[in-house]
């Protein structure tokens, strides 16, 4: 678990990690506190990109590029689309936070306090060298372990993605829920007009 590195020595990798981590943490704080919703989404992009940098420093390069592709690429665009489609307030607004800010602050600080205390105490004397396991993070290594040991979860995951895709399409299509409204609005008056012009069957009889 621990390497033979002399205790307390700080490497360049660690200093870089702390700097990137501070950037990530600051961007995350801005994501949840900034008053402009679009700016919050863009700060989230910074935070996720910083996390990709952290993965690189932890020698998980394949995960880092997956993070850039999916989070920074796809999820951020999806969130911006969500903001656009729900006509979210684009500018600065004060309606973004709910009234229970103090309760949220207390819960957040308590979470941070408990987690950081427990973790710092648990791994107080644990050092590791990410570069010693660098072969585990390449696309080749991750791919071979993915398709050797984790094939069944992988396949289950593709079924899950298919289900999520179908669910999202069903939820967001318009024509199902609008069909009745459409008939009421356009077809029913037309049919009524037709029956008013032409003599009704009862009248003929």
């Amino acid at each position: 678990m621990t390497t033979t590195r002399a205790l307390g020595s700080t490497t360049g990798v660690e200093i870089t990690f702390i700097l990137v981590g501070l950037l990530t943490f600051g961007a995350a704080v801005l994501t949840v506190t900034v008053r402009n919703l679009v700016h919050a989404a863009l700060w989230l992009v910074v935070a996720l990109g910083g996390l990709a940098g952290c993965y690189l420093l932890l020698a998980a390069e394949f995960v880092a590029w997956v993070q850039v592709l999916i989070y920074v690429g796809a999820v951020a665009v999806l969130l911006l689309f969500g903001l656009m489609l729900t006509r979210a307030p684009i500018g600065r607004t004060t309606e973004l936070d709910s009234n229970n800010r103090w309760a949220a602050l207390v819960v957040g600080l308590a979470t941070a306090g408990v987690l950081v205390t427990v973790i710092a105490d648990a791994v107080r004397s644990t050092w590791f060298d990410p570069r010693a396991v660098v072969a585990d993070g390449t696309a080749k290594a991750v791919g071979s372990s993915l398709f050797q040991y984790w094939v069944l979860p992988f396949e289950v995951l593709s079924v899950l993605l298919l289900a999520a895709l179908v669910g999202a399409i069903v939820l967001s299509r318009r024509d199902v829920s609008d069909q009745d409204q459409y008939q009421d609005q356009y077809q029913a008056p037309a049919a009524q007009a037709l029956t008013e012009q032409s003599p009704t069957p009862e009248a003929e009889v």
Partner: protein
Amino acid sequence: MHAVSPLTLAALLFAVGVYGMLVRRNAVAVLMAVELLLNAVNLNLVTFSALLRDRLGMGQVFTIFLITVAAAETGLGLAIVLMLYRNRGTAAIDDARELGEDGALGLKRLPSPTPPAASENDKAVAK
């Protein structure tokens, strides 16, 4: 590298996500906070993968699984938020309290929501 720095970063990100999830009103902003929570867990997985040197690559493979699940969750969540917006004209989750009792926990039932007025675009689509 000291194991404290990545694990502390993950714990702090998790706490920030918890705070954001509780404090935001807009449902899309709440989804952003949920992304922060999931990413904190991802960082933990990657760190422990390097720390424990797992032979099966479990930490990194599970990180990729989690990224996939999070992407699916975001897609479905946004679809649900979109339905909420279409049916009620707002994406603020404070206004969606049909399940709350009157007076329970100090909640007051809001006046019945009015559906959003059909915009020009919607009319054009309907025609």
